[in-house]
């Protein structure tokens, strides 16, 4: 499983454009809001928590449709499934690699996006924490979606339709946490709920994704 994870990281480092594209997408979407809403800091700061979380989730979704499709097209998936490695562990390694390659750079870019959206600086720390939990949940749900849509024509369109409704709680709690922190409130309960969601997705999503891969 660690070998699969390390191979993913190595491949991502050889093709850094994909991870960079997600980060740039995140920053550009956040940069568009001031143009649409107007540069008034008050109006922007009200929008900022929700916009930040939504943009980050959409950016993390970008590379997901290639997660298993590339492996299936060049025959690697057949070999990976005949190594005796349980498919659930393969899916877990893929989800972990997706988070490392896409989620972590998004966290590094969060201060830039937060500044573009005029989010009060008091909220930045919690924003990074909430997005760390939220993007990890999305990596897990997205791995499940990628495994389910593997082999479907137009899987790239199907995937967001499957995954985004499941990510609604992430948007609610992550935006709630950021809003609370930026307004001087208590962000802890929101973060704990995100953590609970992650604790549930951590075992369930790879198991379901593994079952989907075996059937595929």
């Amino acid at each position, binding site marked *: 499983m660690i070998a699969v994870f390390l191979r993913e990281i*190595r491949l991502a480092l050889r093709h850094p454009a994909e991870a960079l594209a997600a980060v740039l997408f995140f920053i550009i979407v956040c940069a568009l809001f001031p143009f649409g809403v107007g540069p008034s800091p008050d109006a922007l700061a009200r929008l900022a928590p929700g916009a930040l979380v939504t943009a980050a989730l959409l950016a993390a979704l970008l590379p997901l449709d290639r997660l298993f499709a590339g492996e299936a097209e060049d025959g690697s998936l057949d070999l990976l499934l005949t190594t005796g490695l*349980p498919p659930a562990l393969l899916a877990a390694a893929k989800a972990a690699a997706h988070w490392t390659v896409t989620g972590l750079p998004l966290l590094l870019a969060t201060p830039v996006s937060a500044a573009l959206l005029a989010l009060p600086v008091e909220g930045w720390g919690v924003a990074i924490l909430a997005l760390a939990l939220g993007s990890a949940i999305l990596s897990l749900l997205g791995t499940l979606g990628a495994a389910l849509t593997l082999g479907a024509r137009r899987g790239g369109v199907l995937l967001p339709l499957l995954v985004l409704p499941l990510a609604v709680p992430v948007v609610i709690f992550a935006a709630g946490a950021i809003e609370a922190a930026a307004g001087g409130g208590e962000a802890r309960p929101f973060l704990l709920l995100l953590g609970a969601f992650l604790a549930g997705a951590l075992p369930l999503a790879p198991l379901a994704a593994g079952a989907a891969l075996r059937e595929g």
Partner: protein
Amino acid sequence: MLAAEDLAARRGGRVVFAGLSLQAAPGEALLLLGPNGAGKSTLLRVLAGLLRPAAGRVAWDGEDVALDAAAHGARTRYLGHQDAIKPALTPREDLGFWARLRGGDPDAALAALGLSALAGLPCRTLSAGQRRRLALARLALGDAPLWLLDEPTLGLDSVSVGRLGALLAGHRARGGIVLAATHLPLPLPGARELGL
């Protein structure tokens, strides 16, 4: 000992073959012959555990392989039509990855297929035959008793076919089983033929 009883397989609702039984004892080689679309690749995928048979069962030493997919995976080496090569990795990195999953020595496997001189080049620079040789080199990793090969000599030159012959002979001498689907003559002396 590999045995399949009364196997049937379906692709896209169409029955590809049905009522197929076969047996292969240690050291034996079985050639799957038949026209395009006869179900040779499908049979190999069923035997590898990648595809569930529509009917019948595949057994190893009398035990149904579907009961323990991990154990069947560990004893099987499957070579598909595609070479499963990532253009950005070098042959040594590729084999190093599979060796971590399945054991074995990547450098010895590279040498067995004559790829040592190319070990450090990115795979995107390899020719089709060289890519096939890299896919074949994975067979030499670790020690799995069951080899399932789909058109193994596709694109190989005669020297490489000779190297593959040595690899197959060594595998059978150790008590390994080879099942190969092919349209070309393979270096498998004494192989039984199974028409599909």
